[in-house]
C-alpha cells in the first residue's frame, strides 16, 4: 500500500522525532514516503523525503495518488502548511494535541480567513467568545487564552471528513468521539529521543545550578515551556506551606519562558521565601536535560487545563526513573497508580504538598515508583509499538474510504438547504446513516 505521511521534519520538532521512531517499522509494511513542509534543515529520515513549499494543488494531486495519506497535526505553526492538505484531501489524522486552537488561529491569520474562523467559533460556542481570536495574544491574559483553547479546541475542523484519527490517550479519544468518519485509534506515544538538539541558552545556567545543588537536596523539576498551565505557582505555594518541603526541596522549572511569566514566578518564590530554592533554567539542550533528569528526584506535571493529547515530557521523566506528581485528570489519570502520584485538582496546594511529602519522606518508595515508571515506559512505549498502532489505524482508515462518498453525498444535499450547520438535522442524518450502513 502506498502511503504518504505528511509531518513536520524540523529538527526542533518533538512530534517529528516521535513520528520518525515509527517510520522504520512502517516502511516494512507500507510503501512509505514522508512529505514535509520545506525548511532549512530536516531530521534524518529513513525513507524517501519530499519537502514541499506550500499546500498547492500540485501537492494535493500528488498525495491523491497514494492509497492513504497520514497527516500529523499538532498545535504549532509547524503544522500550518499541513492543515489545508488534511482539510482538502481526506486521510488519517494523527493528533498530538487535544487543542488545535493556536494552529487554526495562526493558519487563519496567514490566509486572512480569521473572520470565517470567528464565525465558526460563534456558531459553535454562542455569541461573545470569538473575539479573543482577533486579539493579540500579547495582550490576552494567558490563563484566559489557555482556558479558551481547552474549551474551543477546534479539532472538529481538522477531523471533518477524515478517514480516522490517531490519538495518544483514551481521554483524547473520548473527546473527539464522532468527529471523524472513521475509527479513532489510541496509540502509545514513544518517548522523545535524546538526540533532540535544541538551542540551549540555559546550559550554562544548568551547569551552575547542578554544581551548587546540595547533596541532600530533593530536586523537583517541571520540564517544558514555563506556561501558566503548569501550575508552578501552586508548587511554590505547596512547598512554602510545609516546613519539611521548604527545607529540603529545590524546584527547577526546566524550559523556555517568557520574561514576564518568569519574573512573576521569581517574585512569587521570593514572597514565599524560596528565592534560593527556585530556578528557571531557560531552554536547555539534550545533554543538560539528561544531566538534570539524572539528578532530579521528583517530577511534577500539573497541567490545568490540559491541551496536549499525551505528555511526552512526562514519559521522558518516567523513562529517566523519576516518579511524577500529576493531576488526576485527562490523560494523566491513565498513568498506572504505582507510577504516578495523582492529586485531585480541587485539592490545590494542600494536595500537591501531601503528594510531595509522600515522595520526599520515603526514599525507598520514591525509588520504587521511579523504577516502576521506567519499566512502564520500557514495556509500553517504543517506535515499534507506535508503528503497530499506526498500521492498525491505517487499515481502519482504508476500510473507511467508501464512506467518503456517502458523506460527500449527504453533505452536499444538506448544504443545498443550509442544513449542514443545523446540528439537529445532521444528527438525524448521521443516525440514519449509522442504521442503514451499520456504521456503529
Amino acid at each position, binding site marked *: 500500500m502506498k502511503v504518504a505521511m505528511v509531518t513536520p521534519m524540523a529538527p526542533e520538532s518533538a512530534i517529528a522525532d516521535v513520528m520518525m521512531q515509527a517510520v522504520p517499522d512502517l516502511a516494512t509494511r507500507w510503501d512509505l514516503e514522508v512529505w514535509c513542509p520545506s525548511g532549512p534543515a530536516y531530521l534524518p529520515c529513513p525513507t524517501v523525503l519530499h519537502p514541499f513549499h506550500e499546500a498547492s494543488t500540485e501537492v494535493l494531486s500528488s498525495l491523491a495518488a497514494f492509497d492513504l495519506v497520514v497527516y500529523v497535526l499538532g498545535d504549532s505553526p509547524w503544522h500550518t502548511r499541513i492543515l489545508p492538505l488534511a482539510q482538502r484531501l481526506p486521510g488519517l489524522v494523527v493528533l498530538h494535541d487535544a487543542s488545535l486552537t493556536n494552529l487554526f488561529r495562526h493558519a487563519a491569520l496567514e490566509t486572512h480567513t480569521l473572520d470565517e474562523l470567528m464565525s465558526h467559533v460563534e456558531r459553535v460556542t454562542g455569541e461573545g467568545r470569538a473575539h479573543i481570536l482577533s486579539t493579540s495574544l500579547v495582550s490576552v491574559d494567558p490563563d484566559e487564552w489557555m482556558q479558551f483553547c481547552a474549551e474551543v479546541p477546534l479539532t472538529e475542523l481538522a477531523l471533518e471528513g477524515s478517514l480516522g484519527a490517531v490519538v495518544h490517550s483514551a481521554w483524547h479519544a473520548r473527546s473527539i468521539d464522532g468527529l471523524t468518519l472513521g475509527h479513532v485509534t489510541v496509540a502509545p506515544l514513544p518517548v522523545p529521543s535524546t538526540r533532540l538538539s535544541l538551542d540551549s541558552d540555559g546550559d550554562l545556567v544548568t551547569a551552575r545550578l547542578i554544581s551548587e545543588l546540595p547533596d541532600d537536596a530533593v530536586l523537583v523539576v517541571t520540564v517544558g515551556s514555563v506556561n501558566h498551565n503548569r501550575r508552578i505557582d501552586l508548587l511554590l505555594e505547596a512547598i512554602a506551606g510545609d516546613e519539611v518541603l521548604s527545607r529540603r526541596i529545590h524546584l527547577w522549572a526546566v524550559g523556555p519562558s517568557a520574561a514576564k511569566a518568569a519574573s512573576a514566578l521569581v517574585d512569587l518564590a521570593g514572597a514565599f521565601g524560596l528565592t534560593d530554592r527556585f530556578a528557571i533554567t531557560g531552554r536547555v539542550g539534550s545533554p543538560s536535560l539528561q544531566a538534570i533528569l539524572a539528578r532530579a528526584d521528583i517530577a511534577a506535571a500539573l497541567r490545568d487545563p490540559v491541551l496536549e493529547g499525551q505528555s511526552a515530557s512526562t514519559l521522558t521523566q518516567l523513562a529517566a526513573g523519576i516518579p511524577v506528581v500529576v493531576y488526576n485528570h485527562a490523560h494523566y489519570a491513565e498513568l498506572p497508580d504505582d507510577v504516578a502520584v495523582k492529586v485531585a485538582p480541587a485539592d490545590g496546594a494542600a494536595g500537591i504538598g501531601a503528594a510531595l511529602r509522600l515522595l520526599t519522606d520515603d526514599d525507598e518508595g520514591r525509588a520504587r515508583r521511579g523504577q516502576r515508571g521506567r519499566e512502564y515506559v520500557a514495556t509500553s512505549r517504543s517506535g515499534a509499538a507506535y508503528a503497530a498502532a499506526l498500521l492498525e489505524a491505517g487499515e481502519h482508515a482504508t476500510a473507511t474510504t467508501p464512506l467518503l462518498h456517502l458523506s460527500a453525498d449527504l453533505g452536499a444535499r444538506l448544504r443545498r438547504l443550509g442544513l449542514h450547520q443545523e446540528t*439537529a438535522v445532521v444528527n438525524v442524518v448521521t443516525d440514519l446513516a449509522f442504521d442503514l450502513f451499520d456504521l456503529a
Partner: protein
Amino acid sequence: MKLLVANNAAPFVRGGAELLADRLVLELRRAGHEAEVMRLPLGNTPEQILESIVAASLMDVVNVDRVIGLKFPAYLIPHPDVVIWLVHQFRQAYDPPPVGWPQDPSFDRAASAVRVADRHAFASTNRLYAISPMVADRLQRSNGLTAAVLMTPPHSDQEYRTRTAEDFIVALGRISDGKRQRLAIQAMRYARPGYRLVVAGPPDNPAMLDQVRREIDESGAGDRVEFIPRFITEDEKLDLISRCIGSVYLPVDEDSYGYVCYEAAMSSKPSVTATDSGGTLTLVDHGRTGLVSEPEPRALAAAFDELSRNRDRARQMGENARAAALGLDLSWSRVVEELTR
C-alpha cells in the same frame, strides 16, 4: 411536461390542500401535461419534523421535468426545476404560540431547521407564488421574499344558485376549533328572535362533536341552532347556501380567501367573518360584501341581527360579493399557464 405536484401528508387528514393538489393534477392533465401527486409525510413532534426535512432533502426524483411544491416539506425536494406555489408556510416554526410552537429547546431546533431549509428552498426555486395575498404578506414579513400572488380557483365546478333568503344563517365546513363554529353558536344566545343558525359539516373528532352539542345545550338557544354533524353533499351544501340569509365563517388567520366565503359569494350571499380571520378579508369587505365582526359572541350576534333585520341590504351585499368573487378572475387555465411556463 412531466410534472410532480409535491404536497405533504398527514395520515387520514384531508383538507383544502389535498383537494387543491388533486384538482391541480387534473387541470395539468387537461392541459396536456403528465402529472402526478407525491405526498411526503409530515409528523407533529420536533423529531418527526426533522425526519421529514431529512426525507425531503435526501429524495431523488427521476423522470420528472419540474416539481411544483405546495407545502412544507415537499418543496424541499432537490430538483433543478422547482416552482413553488405556496399554500402556506409551516407556521408552527414562524408564529408565536398558540399557532407557533412553545418555547422549548427541541422545538427551537426544529423551528431553526425549518426556517433555514425554507430560506434556501425559496431562494433557489425558479419561481415563487403564493396562493393568497395573506400568504404572500407572511412570506414577506418572515423571509423578506416577494411572491407573486396566484390565487387558487375553487376545487370543484359548481352550479351556484340564489334563492330567496329563508330565516337562517349557515355555518359550513369541517367542524374544528380552528374554524370556531362554537363561537357562532355562542352568539345565538344574544341574537334576536326570528332566524336560526344551521351548522353543517363533519366534526374533526368525537370530542369536537360532544363539545358542539354541549355548546348548543348551554347556549339556551337549542331550538334556534340546527346541527348537521356529517359530511354533506355538494347538492346539500349548494341548497343550504342558496336559501340562507348569509354565511358565517370564522377561521383564525385563514391562509386563503376561504372557499366558504367564495361559495357564499358565488351564490350571491353575504358572509360574516371575524377581524382576525385573515384571508377571508379578501372577499369580505365590511358593509359592502358582508360584515366583519370582532371575534366575540355579542358582536357576532349584532352582525347576524343586521343581516336578518335588513334583508334588502343583505341581498345587496350578496350581489356585491358575487361581483367581487368574479373579479378575482379565478381560473385554472391561468394557474396552469403560470405554473408551467
